[in-house]
């Protein structure tokens, strides 16, 4: 066990820090769930990619930097430190990308990964359907083979980034007689294809963060299948593993929030505002939990670098970070007192930051990427070994 960084790792950190300090926009970009914000975030991704920092852990040939997972953690730490914009293509780069790396053909890797790294192509997720939420195996949307094409019909919903994305990945039922997990195939669908209708859905924060997507005889070449036919469930589980674990929500995100929370506490205290005595303890707990998540991730990464694999324990991660994120924002709103409910335009809102917005977003954490109740079932059955029925 050696918890110090090597000189190479320190040099990598310094290089990332220098580049980010020179390039990160000085003013925050508008929300990536607005049309203008989406464009601005895509431009930022292009710049990041031009600098060679878009996909740090990917092989160079696919637009990455060829770094290992530890260096990726270091990059993330610097990224959050620099206050850099949210990753508009996170569904692509953090979820689908690693899945293509694992299941894609050489042609698919060459076709999709570089444009994903640069965000020339931004991806939406197509998991849920009106009748398949937590029960994802209840998927009804179909993809029938017609010659060298799939013909897709049905509906996906809650497609994150769906309102503005270029492509969608998801599972479709390719065997009409199949049930549950069987007979599903993982297919990549261009959202500009004929027969696709995207209907944005306003989220709790009023922005179009996700969308319904309707498929009406949408023709997609068979080569858009990822992994084997009818093996979509296993492919999707790999994607979900990345989503629940260390790719989508790297620890620096929460350490950064914890740091801001500590700063907020100090500001409120310095102002002489009344502070609920419990909140001091809450701030300390949030800080400790962010550290716990970080150390756990470092331990996981060390294990992966030594040849280990991630399994059901991704469900432990997902519960921990999503509930921590909610708690941190609740604590911040508690510190803000009466000003907690002010929107950014209010004249008395100076210094309230984006805690309210962050709180609303944090509330989606225990729901997306598989509800925390589903994660608890996975932990109980696959880690603890409790009986399914």
């Amino acid at each position: 066990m050696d918890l110090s960084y090597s000189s190479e790792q320190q040099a990598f950190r310094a290089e990332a820090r220098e580049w980010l300090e020179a390039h990160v926009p000085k003013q925050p970009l508008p929300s990536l769930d607005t049309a203008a914000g989406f464009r601005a975030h895509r431009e930022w991704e292009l710049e990041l990619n031009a600098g060679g920092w878009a996909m740090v852990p990917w092989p160079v040939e696919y637009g990455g930097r060829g770094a290992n997972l530890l260096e990726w953690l270091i990059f993330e730490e610097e990224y959050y430190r620099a206050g850099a914009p949210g990753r508009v293509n996170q569904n692509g780069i953090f979820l689908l990308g690693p899945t293509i790396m694992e299941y894609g053909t050489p042609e698919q890797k060459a076709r999709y990964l570089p444009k994903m790294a640069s965000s020339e192509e931004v991806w939406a997720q197509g998991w849920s359907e009106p009748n398949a939420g937590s029960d994802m195996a209840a998927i009804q949307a179909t993809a029938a083979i017609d010659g060298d094409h799939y013909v897709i019909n049905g509906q996906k919903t809650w497609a994150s980034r769906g309102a503005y994305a270029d492509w969608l990945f998801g599972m479709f039922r390719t065997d009409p007689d199949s049930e549950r997990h069987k007979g599903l195939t993982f297919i990549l669908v261009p959202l500009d294809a004929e027969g696709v209708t995207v209907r944005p859905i306003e989220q709790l924060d009023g922005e179009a963060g996700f969308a319904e997507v309707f498929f009406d005889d949408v023709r997609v070449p068979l080569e858009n299948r990822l992994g084997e036919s009818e093996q979509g469930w296993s492919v999707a589980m790999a994607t979900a593993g990345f989503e629940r674990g260390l790719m989508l929500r790297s620890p620096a995100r929460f350490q950064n929030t914890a740091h801001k929370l500590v700063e907020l506490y100090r500001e409120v205290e310095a102002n002489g505002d009344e502070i609920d005595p419990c909140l001091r303890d809450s701030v300390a707990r949030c800080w400790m939990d962010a550290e716990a998540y970080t150390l756990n991730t470092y331990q996981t990464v060390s294990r992966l670098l030594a040849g280990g694999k991630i399994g059901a324990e991704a469900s432990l991660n997902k519960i921990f970070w999503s509930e921590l994120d909610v708690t941190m924002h609740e604590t911040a709103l508690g510190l803000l007192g009466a000003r907690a409910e002010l929107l950014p335009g209010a004249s008395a809102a100076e210094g309230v930051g984006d805690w309210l917005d962050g709180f609303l977003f944090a509330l989606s954490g225990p729901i997306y990427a598989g509800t925390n109740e589903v994660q608890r079932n996975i932990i109980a059955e696959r880690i603890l070994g409790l009986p399914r029925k």
Partner: protein
Amino acid sequence: MEFNFSEDQLLLQRTVREFLEGECTTAFVRSLWETETGRSEEFWGKLAEIGVPGLLVAEEHGGLEMDEVDQVLLLEETGRAAVPGPVIDTTSVGVRLLEEAAPPELRAEWLPKVAAGRATLAVGAAISPFVADAHIAGLLLLQHGDEVHAVPAAEVSALAQPSNDPARRLFSVDWNPSGATKIAESDVGRNAWAAALDRGAYACAAAQLGVGQRLIDMAVAYACTRKQFGVAIGTFQAIKHMLANAQVRVEYARALVHRAAYSVAHAVDSRAVDTSAAKVAASEAATAAAKIALQVHGALGYTWEQDLHVWMRRAWSLELAWGRGAWHRARVADAVIDGKFPAPTFGYSAPGV
């Protein structure tokens, strides 16, 4: 950067686990509840044969001269097996305190006996009004202001304070500080006691990981066999989700504890905060597991006969030992919010830092 244990460290853990499964059965632990001292010299001697009490002791004194990173997994095993006796106070705190504060002749007198399992140490630090297992200790290391005093058992009066966990008996110790008992002045003692507290906290946290996991494992085993409404109760989501919550807490305490072991072994600047965070997380994980495991067992778990309370009592007493949760959380807040101690975040550093 490598946050893994070596093959040797994992092998040592397996060795200790197998030893304890054979020698420290629940029946053995409960049988000691009925004896006068509640301790077994024979068992302690065997524990010494596999190197547990002397793990940190220097080779010149008959120890293995390993560090806390080597030790942390073993402490977890002693929690899993509910080992009775002063594992924490002797093997994690006492031997280091002797090394740091005692003159060479005192070290040469006591450390070989401790490593060989022929004597135990008791530690009376200001954090607690009680001294654990003072009744069997050969030597007591006692805090007086910031001074360190070493007092042979014959020179103290130890009054038993019957308490909830038979594996950690508590005593009020009456003694007379004098020039003869003093082994370190305040300047040396201040650092030694600060380190002792951090070591106690780390060691309790490590044991709590084993306690918490054992409680979960017992509840899982019960939930798989106990049937109600015609099915195993482990099929019910109410049971699954409680146990999943307990497992999340244990898992997220684990890396903090391993980090604390590293910080203690390498005297890292953030040792105080690291050990406090580990103590808080692991104790809360274990006490939460105790409540949940009891609920899963229902009325059966509420009986004296069922073994669950062996570990429930461990969880509760280790929560109180070496600074209870509120004390450690306050210390973290003092460090993180007020900057009273170094509290660097791991990896990430904030703008301007």
